[in-house]
């Protein structure tokens, strides 16, 4: 995740070494957390625990990946937690009832169709966010705060606040495989982890190797300059919110499948964990800077930390305090990194001799 630039000048200076350490800080933190819990928490390193923990982490990591794009583009998406809830409800509804077209019979769907429709719901809410932000000029914080409430309210309305139970699907309709998304595994690795790997690789590829990714960074760094350079700013913003909605829809599917039930309050405050993971991974809240790899490592630090603390028997109240401290420490170190980085660049520039 750290990328060592081939800077001829100053590569061996103490600042450059310090910079390397600072850049890798999230990764170092993850290793430290891991070592700490393997010593102090019983059974931490057992295979069963690893599987459970990775499933927990995956949920937050999906949201955090989508969130990273949004934050890098200079925005914020508060609606993802609610989208998780709503999408879970949509999936539950479709599994149980299909779509009633009012002619005395209803259309039923198989697993793939349900997943596609749920993903579309997430993307549509993302598009709504994009529309509010680009066309109606609503500040991202407010626009997504609005959709947060709308999506949560819609989730509650869909079942009158009740849970959709027993989402085991129906073999007749080809939806019995829905449960496998949350509980199945392939080569011993849970399906949801395979999905995370796929989405993570895709997102990292978009960020690093496609014009779209480049434009996301440019828009977040300086929207005016990006616009004058010919970047289609509106399209870029639509994409990041739609992608974030898509990631949230995946989480909705996975959770409802894992629990074999859909509850409308699912996903409450998930958006805050996602933001925390992104920030922990080095994403700058002012836009233009952040890495998908960093975010995933950040999600692991948060996930491992909370699961490990549970296993050590630390009280939930202390867990919350510790999480907060870790996030603040991450941002403080990030500031230090920015300073050192600027210094190294200026030194190298000065070494050129005017």
């Amino acid at each position: 995740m750290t990328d060592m630039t081939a800077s001829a000048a100053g590569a061996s200076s103490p600042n450059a070494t310090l910079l390397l350490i600072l850049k890798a800080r999230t990764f170092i933190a993850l290793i430290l957390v891991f070592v700490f819990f393997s010593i102090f928490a019983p059974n931490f390193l057992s295979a069963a625990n690893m599987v459970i923990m990775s499933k927990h982490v995956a949920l937050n990591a999906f949201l955090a990946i989508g969130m990273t794009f949004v934050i890098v583009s200079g925005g914020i998406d508060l609606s993802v937690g609610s989208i998780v809830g709503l999408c879970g409800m949509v999936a539950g509804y479709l599994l149980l009832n299909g779509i009633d077209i009012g002619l005395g019979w209803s259309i039923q769907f198989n697993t793939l169709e349900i997943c596609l429709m749920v993903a579309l719901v997430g993307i549509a809410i993302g598009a709504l966010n994009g529309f509010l932000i680009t066309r109606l000029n609503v500040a991202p914080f407010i626009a997504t705060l609005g959709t947060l409430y709308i999506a949560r309210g819609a989730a509650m309305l869909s079942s009158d606040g009740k849970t959709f139970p027993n989402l085991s699907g129906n073999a007749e309709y080809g939806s019995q495989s829905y449960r496998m998304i949350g509980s199945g595994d392939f080569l011993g690795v849970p399906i949801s982890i395979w999905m995370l790997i796929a989405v993570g690789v895709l997102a990292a590829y978009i960020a690093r190797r496609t014009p779209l990714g480049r434009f996301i960074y440019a828009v977040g760094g300086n929207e005016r300059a990006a616009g004058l350079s010919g970047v289609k700013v509106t399209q870029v913003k639509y994409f990041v919110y739609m992608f974030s909605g898509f990631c949230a829809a995946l989480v909705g599917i996975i959770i409802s499948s894992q629990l074999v039930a859909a509850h409308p309050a699912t996903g409450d405050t998930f958006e805050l964990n996602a933001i925390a993971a992104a920030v922990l991974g080095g994403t700058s809240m002012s836009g233009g800077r952040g890495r998908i790899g960093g975010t995933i490592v950040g999600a692991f630090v948060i996930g491992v930390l909370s699961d490990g603390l549970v296993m050590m028997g630390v009280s939930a109240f202390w867990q919350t305090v510790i999480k907060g401290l870790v996030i603040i420490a991450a941002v403080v170190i990030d500031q230090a990194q920015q300073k050192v980085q600027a210094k190294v660049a200026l030194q190298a520039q000065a070494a050129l001799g005017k």
Partner: protein
Amino acid sequence: MTLDPDPGSAHPIGLSIRGGTKVYPGTIALKEVDFDLRMGAVNVLVGENGAGKSTMMKVIAGVEQLTSGTVTMNGEEVNFTSTDDAERNGIGIVFQELNLFPNLTVADNIFMAHEKTRGGIDIDMSAQREATRALMQRLEHDIDPDTLVGDLKVGQQQIVEIAKSLSRDARILILDEPTSALSNAEVEILFRVIEELKAEGVGIVYISHRLEELIRVGDYITVLRDGTITGAQSMEGVDIPWIVRNMIGDSSKDFAKEIEHPFGDEALRVENMRLADTSGGFAVDGVSLSLRAGEILGIYGLMGAGRTELLETIIGRHSHAVGDVWVQGDKMGRPSVPDRIAKGLALIPEDRKHDGLVQILSIRENMTLSSVGSFTRGVHMDLGKERSRVADFVRRMVIKIASPEHPVSALSGGNQQKVVISKALMTGPKVLLMDEPSRGIDIGAKAEVFRVMRQLAAEGLGIVFVTSDLEEVMSLSDRIIVMSDGRITGEFSREEVTETALVSASAVGHAPLSEQDAERETAQ
């Protein structure tokens, strides 16, 4: 215009600078200047952009400190370490860039940090309103003290800024281009206020690019060039040619030699371009122009003449602009920057920091931002190809960088500008629009930028460039258009142009003061 036969005695020296030198990293802004500020008179300061006028005033106002040299006030040596410090000594300054809070009211702005209070805590709003009304009356402006500054027109905001200085009872008042956003009538009011202040013995420093205005209002003139004072005398006998001579001097800057080449077909045509501004007028008002391949067209004009807006409408930044643009005979659709870049236009914006570069990204990413398509297959960017293209341009443009991966903010102004130019050139443009390409870069880098411009023109690129530098526009352009108030007020070929003609064309519609005086006389 009457002048005291012996101005020295009538106008005592209130402040003087001796051997003032100010060094910034990389450049010397002031070299050993001696300046006397006379009280009860208008001390006019003139010079091209970057000549050191603003630096000298910042020293007097306590914004900057001299590297060496002394400032004396009433016989005592002073050293202002902050604007507060200077203000306590009776020095007020109205900056060119307005320093107002648009979200606060006029009265709040005028008394910012000097609030009239009861017991130091409770702001006495009614006293502030009253005082504001009195100030506005004096300035003959009907501005309500409770209006938000953001709702005022730029000219009115300037009045508020002036009122702010007046409220502090300044003994020395520095006005940095106070008329750049004022209408004729407002300028007249300002001049009356200046007369009053003069009568009260206030020493006024007046900076402006409008030379006729200077001659009318000034009592003493100081001309600066490249950080040195090239002329200082009472206004008697001073005319525009004298000022221009002192501003520009005999020694020419290092401009690249022209490369002789024939012009090609028409590369750019703009017809009847209009852009409405926020105050109900037009920032660009019916501009038409034509440019041939290989030609360099200079656009000269004062600040706020609509030059920047013109280039922005051509590149398609303003969706509400009306007017047609053709590139090589190809008519452009509705304004859209990406489309027009694809059709062969490229803009180098005036404000590098805010419009030209994404500071947080690397040099490489900035350079290729407009042309990622050229090394992308499908959705996949070929980073190797990108690196070699960047290396190629770094070599061609002689950009001094340690590594293309460093953030662009680490570079000096000149090198940043070369990155912006490279970004534009990477799109393979047919027409290059350059807005103040030499702004804020040192002389060496300027010369290189000019050399590149010549080279590009010889290669058949059409170039439109905007500048407020007389010498620059005259030595670089094949043809010059002068703009004022959003309109074209003059067009000159390289052979026939003179400084005086340019200066007077740039003042059309602003303050053709001699004519106005004549009008008033005939009316009486």
